[in-house]
């Protein structure tokens, strides 16, 4: 069994699915000859040819729009947007057209397409290369939004995303592209897109996180364990539509919840989870619902980026705060 990083797991899933299903095609900027600026599609053009791994002209609306057209013909386009900060030109196609096609044709046409994007900050990239705007997609019915937090999930969730008959936004936390490795068997087993994963059991406080923030969140949980605080950690994984039941079950047990997200605080997915708890868990909550998020400002450039991202300390502090609440 190969031991793979998250990005290698992405490549493996793409490779697996292209081998299995000839309708799967990859398109995007620099995905072919160059294998993607992060190498997610490395080697795939050599293996499957330039009619299945397509270097496109430089235009994101076009990439999304082509994918829509191709998908109505039964192809399964897996589009890459080079960085999430460059998806804005494609929003007209993704929010306005892709999310709605099945609904507006009463099921006559549907779109088995995936839009992959490296997302999030923390790699000291230039301006506009660190966005976490999953909330925009999560607020759009008709889409699924999926974020893997480790190599195995990248493999299993990406397979699921490609096989899903509806459009899936697949966000790859690029900060952890290469920080851990998992042994992954290339067995083609997809993960479900309708459940979150409980990655650590605990009794005192429930953490909910996704993507790269799972890393800091698990570290915070360990830190808290040493202080005698038992934290349950949930990986949301499918960010929309998300599995609220598992979260509620956990919070009914722990009575406390801290949601961790890299995105801007106001109007993020973290807020939506908190809102669900405020509606459905009031009697179970023994402390305010905490949110540790990116600040309500523009992700600073490299020099101050570290101050913006939720740190293990900030996460642990928030948990200590809700533990101390009375």
């Amino acid at each position, binding site marked *: 069994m190969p031991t793979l990083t998250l990005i290698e797991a992405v490549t493996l899933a793409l490779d697996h699915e292209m081998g299995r299903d000839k309708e799967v*095609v990859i398109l995007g900027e620099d995905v072919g000859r160059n294998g993607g600026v992060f190498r997610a599609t490395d080697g795939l053009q050599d293996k499957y040819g330039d*009619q*299945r791994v397509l270097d*496109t*002209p430089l*235009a994101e*609306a*076009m990439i*999304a*729009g*082509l*994918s*829509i*057209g*191709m*998908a*109505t*013909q*039964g*192809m399964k386009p897996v589009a890459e947007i080079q960085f999430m900060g460059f998806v804005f*030109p494609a929003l*007209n*196609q993704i929010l*306005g*057209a892709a999310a709605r096609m*099945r*609904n*507006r*044709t*009463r*099921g*006559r*046409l*549907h779109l088995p397409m995936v839009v992959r994007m490296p997302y999030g900050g923390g790699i000291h990239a230039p301006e506009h290369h660190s966005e976490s705007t999953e909330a925009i997609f999560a607020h759009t*019915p*008709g889409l*699924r939004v999926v974020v893997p937090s480790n190599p195995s999930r990248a493999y299993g969730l990406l397979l699921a995303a490609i096989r*899903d*008959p*509806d459009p899936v936004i697949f966000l790859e936390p690029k900060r952890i592209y290469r920080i851990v490795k998992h042994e992954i068997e290339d067995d083609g087993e997809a993960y479900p897109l*309708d459940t979150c994963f409980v990655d650590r059991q605990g009794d005192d406080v429930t953490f909910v996180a996704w993507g790269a923030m799972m890393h800091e969140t698990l570290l915070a949980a360990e830190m808290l364990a040493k202080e005698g605080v038992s934290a349950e950690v949930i990986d949301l994984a499918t960010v929309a*539509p*998300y*599995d*609220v*039941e598992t979260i509620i079950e956990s919070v009914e047990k722990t009575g406390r919840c801290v949601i961790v997200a890299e995105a801007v605080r106001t109007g993020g997915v973290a807020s939506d989870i908190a809102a669900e708890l405020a509606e459905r868990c009031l009697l179970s909550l023994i402390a305010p619902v905490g949110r540790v998020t990116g600040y309500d400002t523009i992700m600073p450039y490299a020099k101050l980026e570290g101050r913006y991202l939720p740190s293990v300390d900030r996460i642990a502090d928030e948990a200590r705060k809700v533990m101390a609440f009375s």
Partner: protein
Amino acid sequence: MQKLASFEVNYLQYLDEGGKPANDLPDFADDHEVMVGLYRSMQLLRHLDARAVALQRVGRMRTYPASEGQEAVGVGASSCLSDRDVLVPYYRGTAMMLGHGVQPHEILLYWGGDERGSDYQNPLAKEDFPIAVPIATQMLHAAGVASAIKLRGQKDRAVLTEIGEGGTSEGEFYEALNVAGVWNLPMVCVINNNQWAISVPSEMQTAAQTYAQKAVAAGIEGLQVDGNDVIAVKDAVGKALDKARNGGGATLIEAVTYRLCDHTTADDASRYEDAKARAEAEKKEPLGRLAKYLLNLGAVNEKQLDEFAVAAKAEVEKEVKIYFDILENKPQPPSAMFDYLYAELPERFRAQRDEVMRRGGE
């Protein structure tokens, strides 16, 4: 300075304003059946539009965009489509949609506010796109369908799409043409240059002397035709589709016509349109022109023309009845708003669907 490249934009017209041949006619122009068919399609559309507008005035139709004066564009173009081709219409694409098997009552349903209007029942239109309200978005869908055709190596298939001249100002229009060029896609785009984008006249839309020349930016062929001359439209689009089906790549065809009606039923063109310009344009109107040609050709007589009008009206009434019947006797249940959102409704939204149903009628 050294000359690197040069480009020409040509203009095609077969019938002059009086319906007289201005050029050597293509073969199909002598085929009575074909030509009468085109006439009757244009006439049906004109009646359908008039009826839809009337329905709107009495509250039985929502906002409706008529095609008055522009019938030759969509009718001529869509008459070139085969059952293997795919149509990606724009919102004023009634003519093309009818020409590729969409039924009049489906069009009425759509503009009447019922999603089922886009669930085309005719197998001919099964893969066609629904109307694109957001301007220019359809261009990229057309390029995407054309990409699928190209990548699969399918012969004898092409994509036809349409856009208004105002829509050419949107970036997605150019993005689609550019990729159609560099990927040599089997795609034909018709610009319905009806001189107006709601209240904005063509001369405020672009400094390009023609819309056809926008093809130069993409390295594809561009051509302008008299959009009130159905023979020119059919000839140009037919050749372009053939070229596309045979690996010759994309073509941009500007059809010059005039919007002889309000933008939609929500518009009042008298606020911004010069009455004289309208009167001038009316003289070039496509239906009367074609009638004159057909009479000269001996393909029809006056009496037949009257019969066609009666038949078109009857056809429209039949479709209006179906439309009413569906709205009144087979309304969508409120839960329909959830039933086509995903292949399977996520668990998470089940309760909302239940609530909608529970709350029931309006």
